[in-house]
């Protein structure tokens, strides 16, 4: 676009008072990085465009394009140069090594690295000042580094599998586009499509950009990836709605054109398109820390605080006790390092992995390891409606005939057994009309599939009718063969009915005219109605009944269709040529038969699951792009709005007073429309989220979903979001845990989510919550167990400093405990079963219910750990005393004991010991101290199995342990006997055969 032209086009834009960001992409691209955060805020706002309101002339002026000839090639080149290609820009990707470093130096790893560094420091100090340095610190440092490296690599591997969001978006983008430039149609690369291009789209194409339609022939587009609504929508050049997302004259980038053709002007490209905004929003969002990461950080703070406190205390203590500076510093380092639970990181990782596997077996595939626990902490679930709560399949829900409403069976497996009087003649007519006046058909070769699950051609309502008739009446195909169709008028949005004329099987000469359509339209055609198979003239009573039934069914959020018929007079008998254009046959005074209403019914397991969430204190919010009435109806049927509660509008209607006079305190349920949400600021949203227990958001845009999630998070809730469409992906990404649908979910949503429900069933979330809560509890047990042994590990060193006794436990033995004997038992605690009904308590409060709190530390360190330390020291004193060093004589012996030149140290009995003899003694003591810890850890392991229940009740079946004990005894007795005989009879037969 030449500068002059650009200025010229500015004028109409100003007239329209719409600063359409025509050149904005240029500036955005330039300052992309600087403005990233600001842009995100920008992206969160609603799509703001007015191109759909412009007349064609204004449009032409705005984009300075000829609406028949398109851009000139030169213009197109220039615009392309200015605005950049029509493609999605990937976010500045973090290099792999940065990600790797994040795993290496984040959270727990940092603690271990610090420990390792201190070890090396202590070793080098030792090396510098003592000729013969103790290598323990070196080993410890190496092991610590190895632990961090291994677990870091493991986490990196886990992490690297996800985060392919942008790639998945790119897969949605078409490759080729048909544009008209210089009056010529040409196939070009989608990247080269520019603003103002004249584009043609036909059935089967993917739309190459956001396009304002200027002409269309029967064009229908599938906007499901944007709005979540699976039904194709027709497109025409007229502006039908204020909201650009709902108006009929705009088709969006990357959606599918299902049928027909359309021609239009490109109004935005690449990242500026609605889809592009969602893509950049999704990939640009930074996720907060997972709750478990927060907990682990909190835990690290606690542990570090304890370690530093102990270290510094003993640093000064050792100075007061008269140690040198150097010694004191080495002690300080030693104490800090001894406090680091080396094995814990690995334990936690393994526990989470195990749970992730268990959840995968229950159809919850966890992509991000830390997300395993998140579901357990969840306090709010924002659920999409279509496909998650509902079956995503239109199904007949109610019928109205003979002035009665009958309920149809909507469950997935047809198990409720609801029925209605099929013997009524009215039903016979109704079924015939529904089956015959119907263009849907089953796809072939599906005889073995249950009717409800068969694939069909045709739109959702017709398919629903087809299946319903097939199930509850007769084979539709057979019926159609016997009653061949002679003529039909297909459904369209202006006449809102569908008519077909059939030959009748019971009277092959006569024709019957059948009609279905919008109930009010149908009623207008009718002059009589059918009651129990008899025709009666239409009267006021009937009309009132009809209105009531229509309102009742419509009020349940159901799509209602009316059915009527007319037996054509005999002059239209077989052979008559019907002309549907000129209507050479009567089409009035029809006989009204009944109404059938359809809905996308909730999944069978959902109400139960929602109830369980309720019991578990989890607030379930419905966020849907669907209409408020439908949304409310589904919300009520699955229990998101419970039966006892009603919205303000309902209560006002019941009490017959205006909404403003209601006492809002007593209202717990609300349905919020997307357009209301648009005008709210964050405080108002917070207010709604806080005040109401049962909330349904309807008609929401992708950005609003995100805003709702952020609102919940702002109130401190841990939010789970379920969704399947591309429109859900920003919310999925932002949520503490995003849950995508495995079967119906789009690729983008799966990439943005942390967890995938393989069976698309909301009920699986409940399983996930249960597992998440369980692993949280079990991690507590695991950590309590692991931390306990820290005290017997560190007190020897402290006593070594204070009492100057020989070192009771060496560094290597500490490592043996932390990375050896403690690891597997700690992991085994991840398998503990829940102690109480964990689904009956409230979600944990992330502020107060921490994974590791002072009570856990108090129990592990202050109580059980102390007993363990006592056990170790007792063993230590026993061994030394039995070998000659009585406890009291040990106090203060350290300097002599560790003096390598002193080879005649006297013990309590006057015996004299060489240095090496003493060291052998010391190592014996360390070994036994180690074994003591292992043995007391057995008890600790067993007590850690439960936190509240008695071990005898829940923990284990102790009596089963005793079954094997006699056999152990048998082994002892048998082998002692064998050895006795071998000793008695040297060279005997037994020795030859069994002595090894």
């Amino acid at each position, binding site marked *: 676009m030449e500068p002059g032209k650009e200025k010229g086009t500015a004028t109409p834009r100003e007239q329209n008072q719409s600063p359409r960001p025509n050149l904005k992409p240029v500036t955005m691209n330039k300052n992309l990085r600087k403005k990233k955060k600001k842009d995100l805020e920008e992206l969160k706002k609603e799509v703001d465009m007015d191109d759909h309101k412009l007349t064609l002339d204004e449009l032409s002026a705005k984009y300075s394009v000829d609406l028949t000839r398109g851009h000139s090639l030169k213009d197109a080149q220039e615009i392309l140069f200015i605005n950049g290609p029509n493609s999605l820009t990937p976010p500045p990707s973090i290099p792999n090594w940065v990600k790797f470093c994040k795993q290496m130096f984040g959270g727990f790893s940092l603690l271990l690295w610090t420990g390792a560094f201190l070890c090396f420091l202590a070793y080098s100090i030792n090396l510098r000042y003592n000729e013969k340095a103790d290598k323990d610190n070196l080993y410890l440092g190496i092991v610590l580094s190895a632990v961090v490296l291994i677990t870091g690599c493991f986490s990196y591997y886990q992490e690297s599998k996800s985060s392919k969001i942008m790639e998945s978006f790119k897969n949605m983008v078409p490759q080729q586009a048909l544009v008209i430039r210089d009056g010529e149609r040409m196939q070009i690369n989608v990247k080269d499509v520019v603003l103002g291009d004249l584009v043609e789209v036909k059935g089967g194409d993917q739309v190459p950009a956001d396009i304002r339609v200027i002409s269309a022939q029967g064009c229908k587009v599938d906007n499901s990836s944007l709005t979540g609504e699976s039904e194709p929508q027709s497109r025409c050049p007229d502006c039908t709605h204020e909201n650009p997302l709902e108006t009929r004259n705009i088709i969006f980038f990357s959606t599918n054109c299902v049928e027909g053709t359309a021609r239009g002007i490109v109004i935005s490209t690449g990242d500026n398109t609605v889809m592009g905004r969602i893509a950049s929003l999704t990939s640009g969002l930074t996720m907060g820390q997972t709750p478990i990461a927060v907990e682990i950080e909190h835990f690290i703070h606690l542990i570090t605080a304890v370690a530093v406190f102990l270290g510094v205390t003993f640093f000064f203590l050792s100075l007061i006790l008269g140690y040198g500076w150097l010694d004191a510093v080495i002690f300080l380092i030693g104490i800090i390092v001894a406090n680091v639970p080396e094995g814990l990181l690995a334990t936690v990782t393994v526990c989470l992995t195990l749970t992730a596997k268990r959840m995968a077996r229950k159809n919850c595939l966890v992509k991000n390891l830390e997300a395993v626990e998140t579901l357990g902490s969840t306090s709010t679930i924002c659920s999409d409606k279509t496909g998650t709560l509902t079956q995503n399949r239109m199904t007949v829900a109610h019928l109205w005939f003979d002035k009665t409403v009958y309920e149809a069976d909507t469950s997935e497996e047809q198990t409720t057994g609801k029925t209605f009087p099929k013997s009524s003649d009215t039903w016979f007519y109704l079924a015939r009309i529904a089956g015959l006046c119907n263009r849907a058909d089953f796809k072939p070769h599906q005889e073995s599939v249950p009717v409800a699950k068969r694939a069909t051609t045709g739109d959702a309502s017709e398919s629903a009718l087809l299946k319903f008739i097939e199930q509850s009446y007769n084979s539709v195909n057979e019926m159609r063969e016997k009653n061949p169709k002679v003529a039909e008028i297909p459904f369209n949005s202006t006449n809102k009915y569908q008519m077909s004329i059939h030959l009748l099987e019971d009277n092959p000469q006569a024709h019957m005219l059948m009609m279905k359509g919008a109930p009010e339209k149908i009623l207008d055609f009718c002059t009589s109605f059918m009651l129990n198979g008899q025709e009666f003239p239409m009267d006021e009573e009937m009309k009132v009944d009809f209105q009531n039934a229509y309102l009742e069914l419509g009020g349940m959020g159901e799509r209602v269709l009316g059915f009527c018929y007319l037996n054509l007079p005999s002059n239209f008998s077989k052979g008559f040529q019907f002309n549907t254009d000129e209507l050479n046959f009567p089409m009035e005074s029809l006989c009204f038969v009944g109404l059938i209403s359809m809905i996308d019914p909730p999944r069978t397991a959902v109400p139960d699951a929602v109830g369980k969430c309720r019991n578990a*204190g989890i607030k379930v919010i419905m966020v849907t792009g669907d209409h408020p009435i439908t949304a409310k109806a589904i919300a009520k049927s699955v229990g998101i709005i419970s039966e006892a509660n009603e919205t303000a509008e309902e209560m006002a209607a019941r009490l017959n007073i205006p909404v403003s006079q209601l006492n809002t305190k007593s209202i717990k349920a609300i349905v919020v429309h997307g357009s209301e949400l648009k005008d709210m600021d964050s405080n108002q949203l917070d207010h709604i989220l*806080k005040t109401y227990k049962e909330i349904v958001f309807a008609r929401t845009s992708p950005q609003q979903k995100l805003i709702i999630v952020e609102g919940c998070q702002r109130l401190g809730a841990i939010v789970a979001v379920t969704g399947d469409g591309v429109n859900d992906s920003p919310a999925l990404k932002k949520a503490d845990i995003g849950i995508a649908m495995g079967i119906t979910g789009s690729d983008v949503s799966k990439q943005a989510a942390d967890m995938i429900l393989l069976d698309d069933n909301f009920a699986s979330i409940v399983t996930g919550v249960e597992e998440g809560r369980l692993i949280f509890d079990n991690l507590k047990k695991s950590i309590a167990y692991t931390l306990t042994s820290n005290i017997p590990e560190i007190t020897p060193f402290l006593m070594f400093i204070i009492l100057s006794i020989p070192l009771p436990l060496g560094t290597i033995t500490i490592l043996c405990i932390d990375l050896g004997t403690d690891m597997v038992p700690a992991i085994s605690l991840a398998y503990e079963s829940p102690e109480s009904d964990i689904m009956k308590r409230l979600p944990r409060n992330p502020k107060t219910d921490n994974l590791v709190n002072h009570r856990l530390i108090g129990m592990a360190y202050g109580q059980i750990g102390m007993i363990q330390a006592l056990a170790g020291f*007792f063993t230590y004193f026993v061994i030394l005393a039995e*070998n000659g060093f009585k406890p009291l004589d040990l106090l203060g012996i350290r300097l002599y004991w560790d003096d390598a030149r002193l080879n005649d140290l006297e013990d309590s*009995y006057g*015996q*004299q010991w*060489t240095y090496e003899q003493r060291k052998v003694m010391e190592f014996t003591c360390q070994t036994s101290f180690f074994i003591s810890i292992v043995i007391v850890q057995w008890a600790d392991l067993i007590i850690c199995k439960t936190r509240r229940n008695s071990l005898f009740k829940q923990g284990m079946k102790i009596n089963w342990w005793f079954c094997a004990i006699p056999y152990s005894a048998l082994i002892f007795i048998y082998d002692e006997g064998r050895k006795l005989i071998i000793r008695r009879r040297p060279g005997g037969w037994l020795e030859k055969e069994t002595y090894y």
Partner: protein
Amino acid sequence: MRRQLRSRRAPAFPYGYRYRLDDQDEVNQNYLADEEEEAEEEAQVMTVPGLEEEEEEEEGKEEEEEREEEGQGQPTGNAWRRKLQIVTEYLWDPEKRMSLARTGLILVIYFFFYASLAAVITLFLYMLFLTISPYMPTFTEQVKPPGVMIRPFAHSLNFNFNVSEPETWQHYVISLNGFLQGYNDSLQEEMNVDCPPGQYFIQDGDEDEDKKACQFKRSFLKNCSGLEDPTFGYSTGQPCILLKMNRIVGFRPELGDPVKVSCKVQKGDENDIRSINYYPESASFDLRYYPYYGKLTHVNYTSPLVAMHFTDVVKNQAVPVQCQLKGKGIINDVINDRFVGRIVFTLNIET
């Protein structure tokens, strides 16, 4: 207690209620309004009055804290200040005017807990002392076979001295003199008995009976006794070194064959030493000094010594000397321990 309260109250609350703003960056403008509402909400709830009050008070306080911080409005560092505040409040609660008020009970509990732990370990140690004999160690395997040590010993096994400079060897002489005070003939004669040589001095009888000790007189060491030559030969470049075997309760050298001492050059020319005089001349530890009965009953026991008089060592060069015990039941080649049954030292005598 807290948990119970919460669950009892919870149904009356919208779930989001209990959560507080964490992110200090985003100041919640209508916080005050929320609080009022919450107060009203709470008023409607029926609970046990006493407990409820306590809880509310606590909550109110927390909120006050937060509000204060919002007033300061500094986004960074608030988290730390808040933590600090919690800690200080924990230590001194100004409203209740109590120190460590919340933890008072737990401190008492911990006091009793640790007191009973102390009682338990005391009891166990007492039981330990009941099971081990004060006279005989339960096990002596670890201290066998006996180690060897020499005198004079001054933190080093390298004997470097210059004959003509007395200050380089004076401390050896002082050390030896001090060591041999306990072996003075008069003292030995007064305290100990002269028992028959060549056989064990076995004293049967009760374990707790005081045992007699055999005399080992300083004069047995002849030229190395320091009686004739008060410088133990150091002034003439012929140093005396005393060797003793570590005491082990109940240790008996193999019968009839006393443990002998023999020294030679460890590495290098065999002739660097040339001649050694041993005192007593047998160069052995007589059997009568065994067994040792432990220091509680065998009070005056004096370890037997063998003195090595290096009369003609090569001067002005370091001579590594290894002295080994020899005898049945003596091990002198343990690789890890260079002081079991042997000792290595170097003589570097300058003239």
